[in-house]
């Protein structure tokens, strides 16, 4: 199988790489991987390249692409909100992959801001059958605070170090480009709506977001009984960092995603490359 490069979209402003297994069946879902922050489509440390190629080997058609103004993609020239533009870009991506691989349903995968983009589209586009949220929406809970503060309150060494660290950190801040998170109640309602529409959801969070998420139990603390829904899968990779900088961590993440896809969206017989 060979990957193909495309310039596509309603204004031919998007750039993406499609992996097209030779005999993918119409019933097989197409997998679309969204930008993580401002990193172009290859993903942090080439995560998206490894991911899409492994999924191609399993028989899934894939597309990794740059949203408008990120990576190699240009602006569309429309006066859209960022929300409208992301939904329109992903719609363009689904159209392209549908034309190239004949798939009609799609799974979106996104890390960090990519997870937010996937969430946005999964809320409203009927072609989305599932989503993998990597370090997606999360909220500090009472459990989080207890797990965070109690060990620290009892640690004398840590108390001694607090002041010196504070001094060292002063004035070393980098400008941060972040997206304001949606309110917790809105995200809960969104996820419930997705499940009602039959979507299957995979939430994988890492130890790299320990500033606001620090235990597998926190999925339930954040989202309540939703996480017990049979179509919701959660996993906390405590040892990994936010962008999976270590090859072993990346491998474990990709194995998990492959397993989840195989269980929830099996490739139709005879569709492997």
């Amino acid at each position, binding site marked *: 199988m060979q990957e193909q*490069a495309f310039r596509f979209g309603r*204004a031919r*402003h998007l*750039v993406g790489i499609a992996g097209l297994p030779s005999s993918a069946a119409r019933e097989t879902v197409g997998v679309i991987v969204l930008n993580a922050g401002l990193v*172009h489509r290859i993903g942090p440390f080439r995560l998206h*390249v490894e991911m899409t190629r492994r999924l191609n080997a399993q028989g899934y058609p894939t597309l990794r692409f740059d949203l408008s103004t990120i990576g190699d993609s240009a602006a569309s020239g429309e006066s859209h909100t960022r929300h409208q533009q992301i939904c329109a870009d992903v719609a363009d991506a689904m159209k392209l992959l549908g034309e190239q691989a004949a798939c009609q349903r799609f799974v979106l995968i996104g890390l960090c801001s990519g997870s937010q983009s996937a969430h946005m589209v999964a809320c409203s586009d009927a072609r989305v059958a599932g989503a993998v949220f990597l370090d997606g929406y999360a909220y500090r809970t009472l459990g989080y605070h207890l797990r965070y503060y109690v060990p620290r309150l009892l640690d004398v060494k840590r108390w001694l170090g607090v002041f010196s660290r504070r001094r060292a950190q002063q004035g070393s801040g980098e400008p941060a480009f972040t997206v304001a998170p949606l309110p917790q109640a809105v995200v809960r309602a969104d996820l419930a709506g997705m499940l009602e529409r039959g979507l299957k959801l995979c939430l994988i969070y890492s130890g*790299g977001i320990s500033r606001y998420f620090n235990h597998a139990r926190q999925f339930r603390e954040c989202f309540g009984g939703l996480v017990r829904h049979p179509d919701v899968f959660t996993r906390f990779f405590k*040892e990994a960092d936010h*962008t999976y*900088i270590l090859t072993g961590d990346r491998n474990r993440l990709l194995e998990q995603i492959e397993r989840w896809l195989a269980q929830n969206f099996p490739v139709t017989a005879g569709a492997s490359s």
Partner: protein
Amino acid sequence: MSARGEAELPFYFGPERALFGLFHAAGTPARKAVLLCPPLGQDQIRCHRLYRQLAQALVADGVAVLRFDYYGTGDSAGDSAEVDWERCLADVATAAAELRARSGIDQVFAFGARLGASIALASAAQARFAGVVAWDPVLDGRAYVEQLDALQLALRIDRARFMQPRKETDVAAQWLGFAISDSLRQQIAGLHFKRPAAPTLLLESLPPDRPRAWNGFVVDAATIRSLQPPTPWDDPRRLEVAILSHPLIQAVTQHVREVA
């Protein structure tokens, strides 16, 4: 969409169409052509935006540009662990030929940052470059390998990244997010440059505390130009922060404009 975007064509080329490239056609018949040789590893991701901006600035000057990924990097075929120095040099020659064919210009210049500059310098004769612009090239391979090893070891206990320190085996055989082979390590450790094989402009922006290895390499001091502010190539706190530099874009476009 702008005509500029339409003129940026992504494609695969080379033997078995294994290399990804993005050709920036000049709006008018091109007068010159520049091949942008990317750095390796995380530097390649950090510089992606800058390389695109540089390509667009050159195109605005009537210069045709090709950006590409070596085998085992970016969108090109191959795994990260398969990156090989000799293959990188061969890929540069392949990309230079592709640029000549697409632009119709035989006189091709090369630009590279860090190891991308080293690769451009090492492949200058094979790729028949008319000149090279080298931005903070790695000229002392052994020192560079030691530096990357030290950064990788420090990563193991980076509390800003990991909740718990990682085992040494977890971080082995990698440099800052990318698997590396023993052969690539040895190839880079063995790098040593004396005289450039093509007219070279050396743009230097290393932080003041970093050792310079330019002595003994550049024969004419006039071919060195300093850029400000210093570029934080090796600051682990900025490992995932893009490298951007307007002075760099101005210096390269001006140089390409002025060379015969």
